């Protein structure tokens, strides 16, 4: 039994709750991860309070689950062993937006909606994954290595120096934010690496099992001056892959996405379900979208040289592809898609994946682009075995960094209120995951069930991970039962 009074003393009575209705909010999310109820929730407002909560948790051997977003899709923050929800959503200050240094520093509770709005006021933006939910924590999404839609930069990784509270309650800054007195310092927190070892790597992808990250510096970008969106209908995925292998290393394009008809329809449909069904029926099997942008100087010339090469490559080497500023049969799609790609998904409407049937489950992994047709075949073979129509599978391929790799995401849609449907999807999800793993799909962010499947194939890595976890969290209080811990 948790001593709630001690917790209330640390964060203040108004920042602690054990009301059933409140706790139920944390017990489940949009994923298939089975529910788990915490014993109470606290909302600290400072890093020191976070530290004191964790010190208390260690002393009393109570599990702690850090959470920062208001909406969750992967089950990473569902408590498996009860304990305390450490909700950082009230730590939502944006400390600075520095246009010269192209960085912003903000707390874990800052959402995409909040940050995008503030950046826009200064003519800035931030590199984004596909349609992040406006109520999700920006920090957590990048900590969890969400894949951005932008393929052109060599350096990736927008996170810079950040602050973590270790499981033992110590507040610790890493990278160049580690200097004493930061941010009142010569160092501005731009470098994520060090000191000593790369602590930042140990906390990435950790789903809150290594510590609670409280704030970060993040790279921001100038808004583009001008944009053109090019589309290519794709019938032959392998052919489209070869095209991307050829084009993207030439550093053409900003955002580049490849979506099947189901996903694209779900994203752009105005009215559900009429528009969606019509789009699903008439869109090509896949649509490749390439955004070409002019930046801060001579934007037209930049667009011109990229477009010229794009056209030259299509004309000379990929005649079967039609690349144009409009997707045939879908006027105005370019402008619409661009706006969607550059803004978070609004919080006041159902998330795009849940617009169609109310619920969805996504399976995403990293792969070599040339293998994507094979993975599509795998999922299309598994789905019908669970009564799931192939035509209902949502597919999204995100090229990464000059197309050296890609993220593949399959989404299964279902009626969330139908328990039987949910069970079917859960079984399909597991089956598909196993089949994909057997074909070499790389699940680097194994949420829920995937964790066991992946870690049992990674014996050496798992062992080393547990040794490191032992160093930072000897009492295993941070989100226990998650990943391989």
């Amino acid at each position, binding site marked *: 039994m948790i001593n709630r009074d001690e917790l209330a003393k640390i964060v203040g009575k108004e920042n602690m709750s054990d009301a059933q209705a409140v706790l139920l909010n944390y017990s489940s999310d949009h994923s298939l991860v089975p529910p788990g109820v915490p014993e109470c929730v606290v909302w600290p407002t400072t890093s020191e309070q976070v530290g004191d909560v964790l010190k208390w948790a260690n002393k009393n051997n109570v599990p702690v689950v850090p959470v920062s977003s208001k909406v969750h899709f992967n089950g990473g923050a569902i408590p498996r062993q009860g304990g305390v929800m450490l909700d950082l959503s009230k730590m939502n200050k944006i400390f600075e937006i520095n246009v010269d240094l192209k960085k912003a520093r903000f707390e874990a509770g800052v959402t995409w909606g909040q940050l995008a709005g503030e950046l826009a006021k200064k003519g800035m933006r931030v590199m984004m994954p596909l349609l992040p939910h406006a109520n999700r924590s920006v920090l957590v999404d990048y900590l969890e290595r969400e894949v951005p839609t932008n393929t052109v930069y060599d350096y990736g990784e927008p996170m810079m120096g950040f602050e973590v509270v270790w499981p033992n309650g110590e507040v610790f800054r890493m990278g160049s934010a580690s200097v004493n007195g930061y941010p009142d310092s010569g160092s501005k927190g731009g470098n994520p*690496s060090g000191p000593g070892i790369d602590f930042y790597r140990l906390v990435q992808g950790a789903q809150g099992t290594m510590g609670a990250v409280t704030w970060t510096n993040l790279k921001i970008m100038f808004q583009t001056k001008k944009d053109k969106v090019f589309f290519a209908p794709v019938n032959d995925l392998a052919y489209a892959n070869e095209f991307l292998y050829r084009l993207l290393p030439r550093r*053409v394009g900003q955002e580049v996405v490849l979506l099947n008809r189901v996903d694209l329809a779900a994203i752009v449909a105005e009215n559900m379900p009429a528009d969606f069904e019509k789009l699903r029926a008439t869109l090509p099997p896949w649509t490749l979208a390439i955004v070409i942008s002019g930046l801060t100087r001579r934007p037209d010339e930049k667009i011109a040289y990229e477009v010229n090469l794009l056209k030259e490559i299509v004309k000379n080497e990929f005649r079967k592809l039609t690349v144009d500023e409009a997707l045939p049969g879908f006027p105005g799609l370019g402008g619409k898609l661009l706006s969607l790609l550059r803004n978070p998904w609004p919080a006041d409407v159902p998330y795009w994946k849940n617009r169609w049937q109310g619920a969805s489950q996504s399976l995403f992994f990293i792969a070599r682009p040339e293998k994507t047709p094979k993975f599509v075949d795998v999922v299309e073979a598994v789905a019908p075995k669970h009564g799931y129509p192939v035509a209902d599978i949502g597919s999204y391929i995100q090229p990464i960094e000059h197309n050296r790799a890609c993220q593949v995401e399959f989404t299964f849609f279902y009626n969330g209120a139908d328990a039987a449907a949910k069970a079917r999807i859960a079984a399909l999800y597991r089956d598909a995951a196993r089949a994909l793993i057997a074909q070499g799909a790389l699940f680097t962010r194994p949420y829920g069930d995937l964790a066991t499947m992946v870690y049992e194939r990674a014996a050496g890595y798992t062992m080393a991970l547990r040794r490191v976890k032992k160093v930072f969290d000897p009492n295993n209080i941070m989100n226990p039962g998650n990943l391989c811990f």
Partner: protein
Amino acid sequence: MAIVKEAYKALEAVVGAKYLSDDPAICEGYRSGPCGYEAGTGYERVMTKIPGAVILPRSTEEVQKIVKICNRYVIPYVPYSTGFYGPRSHPHVENALLVDLKRLNDFEFDEKHWYANLGSGVIYSQFQEECLRRGGYVVIGGGGAQASVIANLIGDGWSPLTHRIGLPHRRILGTEVVLPDGEILRTGSLAVGDDPFWGDGIGPDLRGLLRGYTGLRGCLGIVTKMAVKVLPFQPERLQPTGISPNTALALPEKRVKWVNYIMPSKAAQVKAMYEIGKAEIAGAVTKVPLFWRVIAKAECKEEFWTEWLKETPETIANFHIVRVLLIGFTSEEQMEYDENVLNDIMMELGGQPRRTKPSDESWIKNADSAGMWLMCGSYVSVDYVIETLAQATEHGPVYAELKKKYTPPLMPDHGDPGWFQSFELGYHGYSEFLIYWDQDEDTTGVDHFYLETSKMNIDHRFYTALIGPHQPMYLTGPKYGPNYHEWMLKIKNELDPLWVCHPPVPFAHDEFVDRAPWMHELKTWESPKKSPYPEWLQKQLAAETAAFLAKK
């Protein structure tokens, strides 16, 4: 005590007699000094030893067996790729086994997916040529084209080309590491299979154990194989020309070009870097110390000094150059775009282009670091830190000011504030400060300056490259993190409970300060009374300290 016979036999069984030796002549050839990077310093003279034996494995499996034998018999061992990094890459205790990794030189290239999979024995110029041949390129770390790719990527790994290519940490893909106790760690996609194409994961990323900012100097295991990202370049050939010593790469001018600009002031110089980053153009943007240009022109040491001593603090203070490398990644048209934008910026800031040779003598393939020793014979960088442009452009002058107190023995450079540049399209700034001296002179000033810079950085709240094993951990530890050193010690104790992997790193600089009498006056911090080492190491260090003091 030399390596025990049983252990020697066990090691011999792993690699064969041809690749193991404890012959004094063989071991002497592996001495750190008397010269090299950071050689000619007290640290090198006090802390390095020649190995008790040298072994040359050929594979990860052989390395693992060697490490397990060292654990079984408590033999200190040191991983060594080229030894170029200087004393910190060499044994610090007597009778250590030096594990020379040069035979781990396998190399595979995946052109389609832009990476190469290579062993510790592969060096940068080899790698770069293989990349250029395939339309790719990489950063050759400032250590030089002769540095081992792996060793450099876990401790250094930047150059002016980092303006576009970014931090080296991100270029590390699937990697094989033999941990200090002999367990094998495979990171990234290698954790679950044989394909090394991906670097992150699974879940938390144990690449975090590989390097820190500037490396662990081999005290947390041996990296035997690594897949490394290659970046797309442009398709025209860069043709080597000339006969040594006057060699260079002839640049295809419509696709690759250096341009030098003289700026009217430091403010304009700095603004140029911000603007170029903001415009997202160019492959490199840098400002280098003036005396490097004199080195490049001088045919010999004497000529260097004749020219250099003509300069004055005024000429240095008024020398504001920006060097820009334009690369036509996409097309000739893109190169023209970059050049137009660059000219726009320079027009705004008053930058004047100077006649620039259509060749590259450094950075793209040669990375001329050996020239650093021409002037005085000894050299070390006392900082090479990536931060923001805000710190980078202010950092050097602080060093230059402190350096005045230690000149001589440091080289007279008229107060040159080092070099700085844009990294990652202006998201980062880089500053490096280099010092030179003649090691035949009294080098106490060098040792003192080196340590004093650490205190200076703490006082000014600057981030610095000389953190971790490079400076006393008990000095820097409490001031960064805070207490990063305590976490490092915990990780070290977990992964290397016997402390056989390159002891006493990461505390070697603490040992140096305690051992060398001329360093004692600088010790203004506390070390804990309880030693962090196991008993065998405490005894050995105590004996070696006593022997050192007796010799003095």
